[in-house]
């Protein structure tokens, strides 16, 4: 292995490790809830939260005032809080005259803001002097010795250089960089939404971006390329990363941390890229590959360019130069970091501003010392005052007054430790209350035996949005509801009617192996006028020039739409619904195909393709193409037999043209044996075997405890939502169905459970579903709380008389939710 290859692999490995804390992020059409701490699950919870907060710039706990409000509302277990505080007090050395648990409780209950400043807190002896009413003795020389280590740890360790520069000069390189990277990501990861797409995407993220990047970036990349030992081989993203990191003079032992900070800057995109590059059989990823290495190469190149532009020869543009700045001008650097952090002492803000503007060394030196003195003195006085107040509130003034300097230092340290970990204390107290409420609500008594079975049993998704309608449904009549995962335990890949791609309807972590086709027996009708008009509108919007005139020409129409939706949404939407093409009733191909059926389907498809090809290529009328012709053409294309000499004449072609047509059928229309074999393999994925169906129904019913006493109606209620112009629409749909509606899964399970053969096999497992029990799929629209029943055409006639009652019950429950 060459040294260069070794370095490439090292960089790849480092980036792999650096990207581990970033959880996967699925595409927006599967926009489901995910655990932001997923990548940190190996850590204890408190540590993971702490690290996650730092990485993702998050606030891990609520403000203290919010917890205090919860405490007064009774949403927090005070006894649990006190018990934790007592444990905390017991773990510390006792302080004479001080009840630490009581102090801690008073601090958490009666003080809204944290007591101890996190940043350079005052020394206990200074606080002691302030408490005694003595002048606070502050040695700014001693404090200034703390400044360099503090600046080094704050600005150098694992922090991207531009973040440090932003913190010291008030620039916004980070924001600028994020915008540029987002633009690159939007261009590359487009999935067919754009009309003008980024060229050469098949070459990978970095290479495609490189070709369209602006002049300054090109110049930088050329510079990197010319510095390589063999520039003729082209530039790889690893080489770019290596070069930029060395140019920025970041020590190699800090690279992993540095990469992590860079990756988490846009953790949504990074998580998506991680998911995309790890997912197998994802069409867009296979076609246009891109991974975190590409992302980092782009990000680092852009960052380097921006740093150089902003540095302009006057500011540090490498980590080494920044380190030297800290060493050589710590006072100015400290004042800068204070000033641009927003935490600068208000009474000195103008002076610091002025001295940083002039940059005069003597003014900086004097301002620095005065600033430190003022800051420490102010903090010591504030803390002394706050501690006195706290002592008064906790009724321990006497004990507090008797504390000596050492005792006060221990008390301050204890309170510092308490505030550092208070988030977990509040959280545990809240969990304790939640646990109590849950346990109080659980009855261990056996349910009273029912005289008769319920009118309806309904299984809903365990989503919180289903809770309300379940309660209301149970209150309006003899309904019994169950909670189940919204995909009803049936992972499926659906080929929807009229669509050419598969949709995974299951939790995003699963990859379904079974494919179900949605078919319709209805006659194909023309599109409704409004649907056509809408499609035309979208085409106009996609064009580059047409939006300029479209807005003026027909923009007013949207006004009517807006007024209708705002003033009378119900009536208007109902009216609009009529204008659209209705989706016909469909069937789901549930059962596995036999070999004969699969062969027959392939043959049928091939025949249809040949007819289409003859129409398109030869301009033949459909009625002129006979079954015999198609059969002969098919056999010829597959190479099974030669065609009849009379075929060319029948088709009004000469032999050469016919030969050419057959060849075209083989190549362009893929009527050939290998492709037919592949089609057969694909068809083998369609549907579920009998065993699978029995297994799914058994698993679903057993998991919710519904194994006997089946009602006449068993509703399987999937859920979904309706919204307009909402890119995050899938976030409102069923997470267990990969951010889609749950109806298809409900239909599948219902279809399986209604099959007599499945029921017979279930009876062998002691699940006896009576003949009059019927599973009906339904969709709960969580936007309107409307429940719509589906596949009613399959309902036995004996059940029709009860349908009105069922519908009334569902409508009542929906109304009660309003």
């Amino acid at each position, binding site marked *: 292995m060459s040294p260069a290859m070794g370095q490439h692999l090292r960089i790849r490995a480092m980036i792999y490790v650096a990207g581990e804390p970033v959880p996967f992020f699925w595409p927006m059409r599967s926009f489901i809830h995910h655990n932001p701490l997923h990548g940190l699950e190996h850590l204890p919870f408190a540590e993971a939260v702490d690290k996650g907060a730092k990485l993702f710039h998050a606030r891990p706990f609520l403000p203290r005032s919010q917890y205090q409000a919860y405490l007064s509302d009774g949403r927090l277990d005070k006894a649990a809080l006190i018990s934790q505080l007592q444990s905390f007090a017991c773990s510390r050395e006792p302080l004479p005259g001080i009840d630490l648990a009581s102090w801690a409780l008073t601090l958490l209950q009666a003080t809204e803001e944290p007591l101890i400043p996190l940043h350079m807190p005052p020394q206990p002896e200074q606080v002691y002097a302030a408490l005694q009413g003595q002048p606070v003795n502050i040695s700014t020389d001693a404090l200034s010795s703390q400044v360099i280590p503090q600046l080094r740890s704050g600005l150098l360790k694992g922090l991207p250089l531009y973040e440090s520069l932003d913190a010291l000069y008030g620039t916004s390189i980070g924001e600028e960089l994020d915008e540029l990277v987002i633009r690159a990501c939007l261009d590359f990861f487009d999935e067919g939404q754009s009309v003008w797409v980024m060229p050469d995407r098949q070459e990978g993220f970095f290479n495609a971006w490189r070709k369209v990047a602006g002049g300054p970036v090109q110049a930088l990349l050329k510079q990197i390329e010319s510095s390589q030992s063999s520039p003729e081989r082209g530039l790889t993203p690893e080489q770019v990363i290596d070069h930029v990191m060395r140019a920025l003079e970041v020590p190699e032992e800090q690279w992993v941390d540095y990469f992590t900070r860079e990756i988490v800057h846009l953790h949504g995109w990074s998580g998506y890229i991680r998911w995309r590059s790890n997912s197998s059989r994802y069409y867009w990823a296979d076609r246009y590959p891109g991974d975190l290495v590409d992302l980092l190469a782009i990000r680092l190149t852009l960052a380097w360019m921006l740093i150089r532009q902003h540095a302009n020869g006057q500011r540090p543009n490498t980590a080494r130069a920044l380190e030297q700045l800290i060493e050589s001008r710590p006072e100015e650097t400290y004042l800068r970091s204070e000033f*641009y952090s*927003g935490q*600068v002492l208000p009474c000195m*803000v*103008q002076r610091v*501003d002025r001295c940083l503007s002039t940059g005069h060394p003597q003014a900086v030196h004097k301002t620095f010392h005065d600033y430190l003195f003022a800051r420490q003195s102010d903090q010591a006085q504030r803390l002394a005052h706050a501690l006195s107040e706290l002592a008064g509130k906790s009724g321990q003034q006497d004990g507090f007054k008797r504390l000596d300097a050492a005792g006060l230092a221990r008390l301050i340290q204890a309170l510092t430790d308490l505030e550092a970990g208070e988030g977990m204390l509040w959280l545990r107290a809240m969990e304790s209350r939640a646990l109590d409420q849950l346990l109080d609500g659980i009855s261990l008594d056996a349910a009273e035996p029912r005289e008769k079975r319920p009118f309806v049993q309904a299984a809903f998704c365990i989503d919180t949005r289903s809770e309300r309608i379940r309660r209301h449904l149970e209150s309006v009549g003899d309904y019994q509801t169950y909670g189940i995962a919204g995909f009803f335990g049936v992972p499926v890949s659906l080929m929807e009617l009229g669509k050419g791609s598969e949709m995974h309807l299951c939790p995003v972590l699963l990859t379904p192996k079974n494919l179900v086709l949605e078919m319709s027996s209805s006659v194909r009708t023309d599109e409704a006028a409004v649907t056509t008009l809408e499609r035309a509108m979208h085409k106009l919007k996609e064009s580059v020039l047409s939006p300029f005139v479209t807005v003026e020409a027909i923009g007013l129409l949207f006004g009517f739409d807006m007024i209708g939706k705002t003033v009378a949404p119900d009536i208007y939407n109902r009216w609009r619904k009529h204008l659209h093409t209705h989706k016909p009733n469909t069937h789901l191909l549930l059962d596995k195909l036999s070999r004969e059926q699969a062969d027959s389907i392939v043959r049928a498809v091939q025949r249809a393709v040949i007819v289409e090809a003859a129409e398109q290529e030869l301009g033949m009328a459909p009625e002129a193409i006979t079954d015999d012709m198609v059969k002969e053409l098919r056999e010829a294309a597959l190479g099974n037999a030669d065609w009849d000499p009379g075929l060319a004449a029948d088709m009004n072609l000469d032999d050469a043209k016919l030969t050419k047509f057959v060849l075209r059928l083989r190549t362009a229309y893929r009527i050939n044996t290998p492709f037919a074999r592949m089609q057969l393999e694909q068809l083998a994925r369609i549907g579920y075997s009998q065993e699978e169906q029995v297994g799914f129904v058994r698993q679903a019913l057993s998991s919710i405890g519904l194994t006997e006493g089946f009602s006449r109606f068993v509703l399987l209620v999937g859920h979904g939502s309706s919204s307009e112009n909402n890119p995050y629409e899938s976030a409102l749909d069923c997470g267990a169905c990969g951010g889609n509606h749950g109806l298809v899964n409900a239909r599948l399970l219902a279809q399986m459970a209604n099959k007599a053969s499945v029921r017979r096999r279930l009876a062998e497992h002691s699940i006896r579903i009576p003949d009059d029990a019927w599973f009906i799929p339904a969709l709960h629209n969580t936007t309107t709380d409307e429940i719509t029943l589906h596949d009613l055409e399959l309902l036995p006639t004996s059940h029709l008389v009860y349908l009105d009652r069922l519908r009334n019950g569902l409508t009542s429950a929906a109304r009660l939710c309003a």
Partner: protein
Amino acid sequence: MSLTLYLIAGLFLPLFPLSMLFNQMFARLRHPWLRVLLLLAWPQIGVLLLSQAAAPVPDWFAGWALLSAAFYAYRAIALREVGLWIGYIATSAWALLWIGVVEPGLHHLLALGFSLPLAFTALLTGFLEQRLGAAHTALGGGMAIAAPRFAGLFVVAVLAAVATPLFPNFFSLLATLLSPASLSPLFGLGLMLIWLLWTWSGIRLLQGIVVGSPVRNGLQDLSMTATWVYSAGFVGLLLIGINMGGVLL
């Protein structure tokens, strides 16, 4: 003798570098009401002095005034402290009183028109200084979240200070623009540029104070009573402005 009088007036209707006196004084005064007093009284002294002069103001004073106004308007863009910004905008505005010299009675009104919105802004800024210790963008923005009532009023105050239409200083600026001295395209363009610079600096200030996430927690917002009082004050300013427009134009 008149020239000496004009130079003394140049301290009160500030012309650079005589303007430094006012700005030094304004920066040292921390009490909002004293600032209000200074903002209202200072230009009136200048106008009074001008009215005492026997000879007409030399033409080159108008050029000097325009350059002074432009200089302070430009410098205001870089300012981050609200008090100083008010001082600079006041200096820039009052310098224009050399250009828009009208009859003595109206000249006082013209000066008052420039001062009134700034006085209101100074009064409101007192709230921020009282709560935070200073009114500086380096103390972190996010007032729209931390103190929404104050933030709303502050936006109106800054808009008023930069001569947004219907506020008194807008009509003062318009009267200046329509005065004989401004009829030359150079002066007209200069005045428009100065107005643009005021607005630019005001927006930068709003970005620094109002927009963003609050850095300091626990800031107490303006009371409802104070909010109503200030709101009524701004409505009053608008009414004064409309009335003033009728008198001046």
